[in-house]
């Protein structure tokens, strides 16, 4: 395991403090960031709506399992960037647990589904039934589990998909309706219940990017890596569908999009470009694997390469902190990653 102190020393030695101006237009950052978020939440709502339609077609025997499988993969990839935004509407709706329940440390998905399937069959296509069930049985991991099991898939996948779509639409509205969270960020100030200044909004977004990187390095990569002599392939997110790396890539792309659109200014564009270049390098390293994450962690040679990706991700995280922290004076806040 790489020592954090060493990493920090490395990062410090290679990074000079950014030279760009200290005067930061946080309102402009917010407006640019909000358009990125609106696109990302919109993508997810669209993919979730398609998922819901495909589930109905699949259960009616009108379309093949492959089409439905593709639809839940698409929805999951569209969700991946949103995993970083665990504040505001996502937090209030418990959406991370409802949509992408993971890690599953005690087999909650399987247990939740079995409890769900014990309900009358007629109720299972109703998203209200699903919404009242265990969060672990409400989302994309539950669909993945059902599709890979010999449990009865229909009509539960109709209800689960409809519930995913409903949450996706609600999140979009919570953020971007006239009185939504985006408006709350625009009205940052002394009387705002959440954001006392525009800078606090920037801090929230910066913390979200950092949190997303922690989720990738510590959880999405770290959990399946286990110890060198004891990899834990079944701890990989979405190992059943082979999406583990794709979800990481999608989340990294989301972070890159927010960084570029939101935080790049005329003054700091060279530093941000450097960061985006580092991010692209990490993504190329991941692209170069020719097997899924749960497979590559079990081979000492390829596990080494996973560890390198993890290290690069942490170095990127430090570089991001140095760049935005140093140049913009932004500080990281607490995040949901701070628990166990």
């Amino acid at each position, binding site marked *: 395991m790489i020592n954090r102190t060493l990493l920090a020393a490395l990062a410090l030695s290679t990074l000079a403090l950014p030279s760009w101006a200290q005067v930061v237009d946080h309102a402009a950052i917010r407006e640019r960031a909000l358009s990125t978020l609106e696109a990302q939440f919109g993508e997810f709502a669209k993919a979730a709506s398609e998922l819901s339609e495909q589930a109905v077609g699949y259960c009616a025997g009108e379309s093949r399992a492959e089409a439905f499988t593709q639809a839940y993969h698409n929805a999951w990839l569209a969700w991946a960037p949103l995993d970083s935004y665990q504040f505001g509407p996502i937090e209030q709706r418990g959406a991370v647990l409802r949509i992408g329940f993971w890690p599953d440390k*005690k087999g909650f998905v399987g247990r939740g589904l079995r409890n769900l399937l014990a309900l009358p069959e007629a109720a299972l296509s109703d998203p209200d039934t699903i919404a009242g069930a265990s969060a672990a049985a409400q989302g994309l991991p539950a669909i993945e589990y059902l599709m890979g099991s010999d449990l009865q898939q229909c009509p539960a996948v109709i209800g689960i998909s409809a519930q995913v779509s409903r949450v996706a639409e609600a999140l979009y509205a919570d953020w971007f309706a006239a009185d939504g969270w985006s408006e709350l960020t625009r009205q940052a100030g002394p009387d705002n219940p959440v954001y006392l200044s525009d800078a606090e909004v920037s801090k929230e977004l910066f913390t979200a990017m950092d949190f997303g990187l922690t989720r990738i390095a510590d959880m999405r990569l770290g959990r399946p890596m286990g110890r060198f002599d004891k990899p834990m392939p079944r701890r990989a997110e979405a190992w059943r569908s082979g999406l583990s790396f794709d979800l990481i890539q999608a989340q990294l792309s989301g972070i890159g999009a927010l960084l570029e659109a939101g935080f790049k200014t005329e003054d700091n564009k060279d530093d941000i470009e450097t960061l985006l270049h580092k991010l692209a390098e990490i993504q190329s390293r991941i692209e170069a694997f020719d097997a899924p994450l749960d497979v590559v962690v079990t081979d000492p040679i390829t596990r080494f390469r996973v560890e390198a990706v993890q290290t690069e991700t942490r170095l990127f995280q430090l570089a991001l902190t140095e760049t935005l922290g140093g140049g913009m004076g932004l500080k990281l806040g607490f995040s949901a990653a*701070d628990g166990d």
Partner: protein
Amino acid sequence: MKFRTATLASSIALASFSAAHAADTNDVLTNYADIALAGYEDSLTTAKALRVAVDALVSSPSEATLQDAKQAWLASRVPYQQTEAFRFGNPTVDDWEGKVNAWPLDEGLIDYIDGDFGTNEENPFATANIVANASLEVAGQTIDASAITPDLLESLHELDGIEANVATGYHAIEFLLWGQDLNGTEHGAGARPASDFDTANCTGGNCERRAQYLVAATDLLISDLEDAVANWSADGQGRADVTADGTQGLVMAFTGMGSLSYGEQAGERMKLGLMLKDPEEEHDCFSDNTHNSHYFDGLGVRNVYAGRYVRIDGSVVSGPSLYDVVKAKDSVLADQLMSDMNSTMIALGDIRTAAEAGTSYDQMLAAGNEAGEALVQNAIDKLVGQTRNIERAVQLIGLDGVSVEGSDSLDNPDAVFQ
């Protein structure tokens, strides 16, 4: 909040703060460490009392001796939960903590369980039942479990790298005393009969090994808590971590408050259970003591901020506090944060009030229990709210985002207490 490395924290001087308030900071951090020490001392004292009660139970099993042991366990949780605010931000403490308070657990690793409750298809040891089996097959190797000793339990903890394989600590002991809570989201805790420890009239099988397990787990808890007391004593690493460098110490203290409030308590321990609607997903699921565990976690955070801790004998440790540090710069924020914490304690107190009156925490998690859900959600909201002002306090006093990882420490866990 991510605090990156200890090295950075001590190398980047925060002149405006440390120059103006250096002496105060030392006093504040000494009081902080004194409260930690008192909390772990009280935890040790109550664990020793638990050991006495456990001894009485296994030497003379009866409903009365079992009840006494349960009472001793409940009492031991009061000081321990208040120490959790010292975990996050301090890697020495956080690496140690999993030995004593790991959760959630697949209790079938330890002892018999009801077939439909507590199984985990993803853990091959979820029903390993150490009490019933004198040897275990792990990854092609045979583990000799014929004598259940503290060493054996330590070696089985997080068996095969699976976190739910909790073999030691408060929750393992809790399971041995109460047994599984088979009431779902109906009222009622675990109801293990005292005869489960009675070698003459044994129920549940393997009563001698069960008693051995209970004694060994309690002994191990005591020795682990002795380590914790040493850690916060005059030459201890935990104390040194927070007192050697004022800035780093304050970073650790605030990290502990914020990480426990938000990611851990509001998130992992409360929101998760609420969303899973799973009665096993409560922190003290066998004893139905979760309302107290949450309450004393919240109080532990407030203790750190207020610089005041009420010991188990009623005496009070108090002194210069983080509140004073914040107040010197912004008295409105200092009072607002104190008011946040008081509101949190009222919200956690509401849960406790309902639970003590007969509506236990697992009932509040039941699907369709809107009143219960509202109580839990209100406490979550208060914890999230106070975290925002903890962040503002951190920003105000100029602590940079530079020190140790908040949790899931990456650095050498084996170095602890060596």
